[in-house]
């Protein structure tokens, strides 16, 4: 049985801007799924629809028999997810450890235990103790990404969402973060959805890839099959991602 099911998901914003035009997708339990697509194709909107931040214009998203449209079971539904946002979304007014503690506090009410969980998660993502009491603005982008991941996993989620996890990072740090994400997903045994436009990230992290184009899922399959999948857009996307710019 699938863990997450998108059923004819449509999202039209005020003013008539249609971003998602009937997305159908099924994601298995424990799967590492990638949503790939160009900038502005609706990837982040799809993620916000999945989280219930945006109300669906039409259709439904089912996670373990819970519907995103069911406002009565909203808390139960949201508790299944943890998100690593593109810009990290760490709270500016809190230190790094307070950010993670704040996340842990949502699942554990014992303050001492929360602090222990926060320390454990921060160490697990490779942050040193000297940065624990610094504010997000005082550390590098890579460290912020690690801290945001620590906060995400402190919630003990069933599903991890990564929104453009390597954006704004240099290739070396991006690679380290990708490895960290892969290890984290593997060690926790959770279902993960990664939203990216970076084919290399998709190839590295994915069990399966779905390609989104103009609000429609045009293809779903294994990353290795993208090159010769028979879908013109997907093949074009694949080739464009592998172009080496010459002088």
């Amino acid at each position: 049985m699938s863990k997450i099911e998108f059923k004819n998901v449509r999202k039209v914003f005020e003013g008539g801007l249609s971003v998602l035009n009937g997305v159908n997708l099924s994601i298995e339990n424990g799967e590492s799924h990638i949503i790939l697509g160009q900038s502005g194709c609706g990837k982040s909107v799809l993620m916000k629809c999945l989280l219930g931040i945006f109300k669906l214009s039409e259709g439904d998203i089912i996670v373990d028999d819970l519907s995103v449209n069911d406002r009565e079971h909203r808390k139960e539904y949201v508790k299944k997810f943890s998100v690593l946002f593109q810009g990290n979304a760490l709270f500016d007014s809190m230190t790094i450890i307070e950010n993670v503690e704040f996340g842990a506090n949502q699942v554990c009410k014992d303050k001492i235990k929360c602090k222990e969980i926060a320390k454990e998660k921060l160490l697990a993502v490779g942050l040193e103790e000297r940065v624990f009491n610094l504010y997000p603005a005082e550390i590098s982008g890579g460290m912020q990404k690690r801290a945001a991941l620590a906060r995400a996993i402190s919630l003990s989620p069933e599903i991890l969402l990564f929104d453009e996890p390597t954006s704004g990072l240099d290739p070396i740090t991006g690679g380290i973060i990708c490895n960290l994400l892969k290890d984290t997903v593997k060690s926790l045994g959770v279902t993960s959805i990664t939203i990216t436009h970076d084919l290399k990230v998709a190839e590295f992290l994915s069990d399966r890839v779905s390609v989104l184009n103009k609000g429609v899922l045009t293809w779903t399959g294994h990353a290795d099959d993208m090159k010769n999948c028979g879908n013109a857009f997907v093949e074009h996307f694949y080739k464009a991602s592998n172009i080496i710019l010459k002088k």
Partner: protein
Amino acid sequence: MKLLSTLGRYSLATLQEIGSVAIFTFNGLKSCFIPPFYFKEIWRHMVIVGFYSLPIVALTAMFAGMIIALQCYVGFTRFNAEGAIATVVLICITRELAPVFAGLMVTGRVGSAIAAEIGSMRVSDQIDALTTLGVDPMKFLVAPRIIAGVIMMPFLVFIADIIGVMGGFLISTTVLNFSVGSYITQTVQNLEIIDVISGLVKASCFGFCMVCFGCYHGFYSDLGARGVGNATTSAVVASCIGILALDYLLTALFFGK
């Protein structure tokens, strides 16, 4: 026809905005009474609203008291009523100037900061992050600020009352050659508790108004630096107008016939 449709569009947009502010305010108020309560956040905002705004409010109140004393002296000498200066300073400061000036100054300092902070949180997905952590943004972001504004503004205004009256006293006794004893006697004799209470009630309402507009405009700010800038401006303008309108309503309620 075009003029009519434009007028209609603006009217509908204005009504929609008013409705939206009303719903937001109601939800914000409701979240102040429903647990969980974030005491650390409440304390943080009490310090921001109360402690850090104190110097600017005190300074404004002192100058207000000094100016009234001077202006009254100039005006009252025309009909030999200089003796009423102490009473006028007292009533002006406690009923009107301390709460209104404090409200406007705190709006400039704190209301704008609230809109900018929440607007930045919206832009950088921090509000969405709260939702995904299972935290109600109204309870975490709005309720502590409302509580802090409503509680701390009367404290600020009470201190402003004292400093404002002191400002009038200082000018009257040093520049205008009033006797210290008679000025104090006149002030004490004419001090009515309703004057002070009405000012404190006004302060609380102004604090509520300032926080609600700040939070609302921050919450619904457009994305980008320009959006946050516009949200801040809108918050300050709306709060100032709201404070003055509320001032009239409350004055009519307390002292109207």
